[in-house]
């Protein structure tokens, strides 16, 4: 099932005049002899949101882990123009033994802010995601959508210049997916950060990204603007966007 992509003009504009905030060149990564990424290159500019899309197991999440430094590449180069990175995890990844306030405070720890300023920053972020009333709740007391929004608040509490989303709407109901996508668009407007969203949800990449690259078996098989996807002649993006079995992806494997 697909929804209509929103017009690109709904997203905040960005310029390619400045240096790219994220530059990835010839990235390669293998696990147990199987090459997951086979020389990926792209750039993301300040204020731009890039969607990395593709079927499960195509290397999308690996790419994010390489960019954040959680994994080391076998070859290639990653240049980040800022050390302030926010990452929204697929499963929220909140620390269950800490309250919402303490989870956000942990992200602010390096800045060594006075407590009053720290509390102010936390409350502002929680207000932005509509969770100010849950500041002293534990993650296990929150719903899935609330946990996801707390994860958003944690990712942006340091005012990151780079924000990364790993499957932000996977596992959520359509209404909550739309709410999360709206938060992403709002954050693009407020932070003007460079962003990457890894997803296979049609509405997410078409609504929130300026540009998308489609990965299949570790290589980029299509790159373009989301609203161009359905009119493309590229068989990979046609198959992916229309969610059909007919096409080059998974050919002979189903």
């Amino acid at each position, binding site marked *: 099932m697909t929804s209509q992509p929103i017009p690109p003009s709904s997203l905040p504009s960005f310029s390619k005049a400045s240096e790219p905030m994220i530059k990835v060149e010839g990235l390669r990564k293998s696990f147990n002899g199987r090459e997951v990424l086979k020389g990926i290159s792209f750039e993301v500019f300040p204020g731009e949101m890039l969607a990395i899309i593709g079927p499960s197991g195509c290397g999308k999440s690996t790419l994010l882990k390489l960019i954040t430094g959680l994994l080391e590449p076998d070859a290639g180069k990653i240049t980040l123009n800022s050390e302030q*990175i926010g*990452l929204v995890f697929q499963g929220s990844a*909140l620390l269950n033994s800490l309250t919402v306030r303490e989870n956000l405070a942990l992200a602010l720890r390096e800045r060594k802010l006075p407590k009053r300023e720290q509390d102010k920053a936390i409350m502002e972020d929680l207000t932005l995601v509509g969770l100010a009333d849950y500041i002293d709740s534990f993650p296990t007391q929150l719903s899935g959508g609330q946990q996801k929004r707390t994860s958003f608040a944690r990712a942006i509490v340091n005012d990151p210049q780079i924000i990364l989303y790993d499957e932000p709407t996977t596992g959520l109901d359509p209404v909550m997916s739309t709410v999360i996508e709206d938060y992403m668009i709002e954050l693009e407007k407020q932070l003007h950060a460079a962003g990457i969203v890894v997803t296979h949800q049609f509405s997410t990449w078409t609504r929130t990204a300026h540009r998308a690259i489609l990965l299949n078996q570790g290589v980029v098989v299509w790159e373009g603007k989301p609203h161009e996807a359905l009119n493309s002649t590229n068989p990979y993006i046609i198959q992916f966007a229309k969610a059909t079995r007919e096409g080059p992806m998974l050919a002979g494997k189903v």
Partner: protein
Amino acid sequence: MDRPNGITVANPLTLLDKYLGIVLQLVGQATIMFLQTMRYIFRGELSLSEAFRQANMIGLGSLYVVGVTGLFTGFAMSLQISKELAAFGADTAVGGVVALALIREIGPITAGVMVAGRVGSAMAAELSSMVVSEQIDALKIMRVDPVQFLVVPRFLAALVMMPALSIYSMFLGLGGAIFIAQAKANIPPETFLDSVKQTVVGTDFITHIIKSLVFATIIIFFSCSIGLSARGGAEDVGHATTRAVVWTMTIIFIVNYIITALSPLHAS
């Protein structure tokens, strides 16, 4: 090597090589984690509130199991020894023999095994589930070292609570032994305690404390390194829990013998 019925039998040398590799890797991981932890402790980079929370979990949470096992071990030992020695007219030696066994060996081992089973398994399960649910990755992204945040407070808590639990287990065991000695062999508590005073020396208590501190170190670093090195999905949480219990208990028994052999009473 193939047998005629088609069953493949692994080469014993290959198996030895495989298990030696696993042991060396585990010991290496635990040692590195220990050194990292000591560095944070010496720098004073500690979270005392988390250490108190862990102390509550390790100490108060283990009081019941350690107490019951200590008490019943005292019952059983006294039942075995008091009747035998009383039959030879050596009832004045019962207290000393039971106390020595409880202070030098049974007390620390009982507490160590029970804490390994209850706390070590819980820590391995908690940390491995944090790996699987990407909470450890989240800490790294926030530039929080999981060793400083998770392992240091657990280690500090265990260093305080393990000797306390061990002494508690020992006293309950002694209490149980006194009760059974009187009930089953008619040995008065005064006679039992006189024997304890004449037999037990300060070195026995020092050995007891050293053992409990070493066991605490083993439980924390092996359980935490097994938990934090988990990979994959939910089933890895179960594997990590089992591995933590098996490895910590095995190593506790081996190290217990080494400490006993090295203690001043046996070293000469």
